[in-house]
């Protein structure tokens, strides 16, 4: 929500030479919409003030939306498992994969900060799994999830488990791209 005018939809403010502020709603297209407005008045000589409303996270959000569309079109139900490290995600997942084996086609995207250990445990269940080492990062972003989905090529009507890292706060804020209507975020532990 804009703290200048309280408007909740995409819009920009244009200040004209008389200092009057115009409130404009751009047409939203498929691509990330951005407008820049140049403030000619009250700008020091040799400088130019460029006003943007550029959300650095838009690229991730767009990719997340693409991920969700792909899963939805192929009737793949995604589960995003999020909790603090050590609270039991992998154990829950291992048990689920074992108990449901044969009843569903399943695949796993495994995010772990440092080791391939979690993926090894999952592979022991004979479920296709891809390890995404996030290195210093502490969550999966939409691009990582997209690449993992491409590698796994989950079947139509299958279940996709994304074992995430980090806290629920970061996972939700960064939207790895699970399906919101047929997808579920499971928060475990603390």
């Amino acid at each position, binding site marked *: 929500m804009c703290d200048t005018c309280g408007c909740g939809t995409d819009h920009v403010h244009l200040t004209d030479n008389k200092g009057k502020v115009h409130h404009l709603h751009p047409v939203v297209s498929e691509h990330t919409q951005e407008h820049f407005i140049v403030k000619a008045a009250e700008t020091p000589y040799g*400088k130019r003030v460029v006003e943007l409303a550029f959300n*650095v996270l838009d690229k991730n959000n767009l990719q997340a939306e693409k991920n969700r569309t792909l899963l939805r079109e192929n009737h793949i139900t995604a589960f995003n498992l999020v909790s603090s490290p050590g609270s039991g995600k992998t154990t829950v997942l291992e048990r689920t994969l074992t108990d449901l084996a044969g009843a569903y086609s399943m695949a796993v995207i495994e995010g772990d900060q440092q080791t391939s250990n979690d993926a090894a445990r999952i592979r022991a269940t004979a479920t296709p799994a891809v390890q995404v080492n996030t290195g*210093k990062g502490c969550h999966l*972003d939409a691009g990582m999830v997209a690449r993992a989905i491409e590698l796994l090529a989950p079947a139509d009507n299958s279940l996709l488990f994304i074992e995430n890292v980090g806290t629920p706060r970061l996972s939700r804020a960064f939207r790895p791209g699970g399906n919101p209507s047929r997808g579920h975020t499971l928060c475990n532990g603390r």
Partner: protein
Amino acid sequence: MHELSLVMAIVEKAEATVLEHGARDVDSITLRIGRLAGVEPDALALAWEAAIPQTVLEHASKMEKTSEAVFICRNCQKEFTADDLFACCPLCGSSATELVAGDEFIIEQIILNL
């Protein structure tokens, strides 16, 4: 995206803006970071120092503003602010709340040196 990825995306946008306007480099940049954007301030500062040398942001001053996290209650339509992603509605107590603002990371303004 972790903080370094975020900073690199900012550098990319700043470079594109400089090019678009035929400017020399950036004088200052203003960022607005939502309270629930999941950005760790110390990590952001470290990433900034690491990523900006030899870019158009090298000598730029940076201003950071924080914007509030705004929720809407699906049950009673009340809008409220909170610091916690799983906030319940202060009016009806429902947990069916949705974040409508406060997870963004916005470049608000860039002042260019022409």
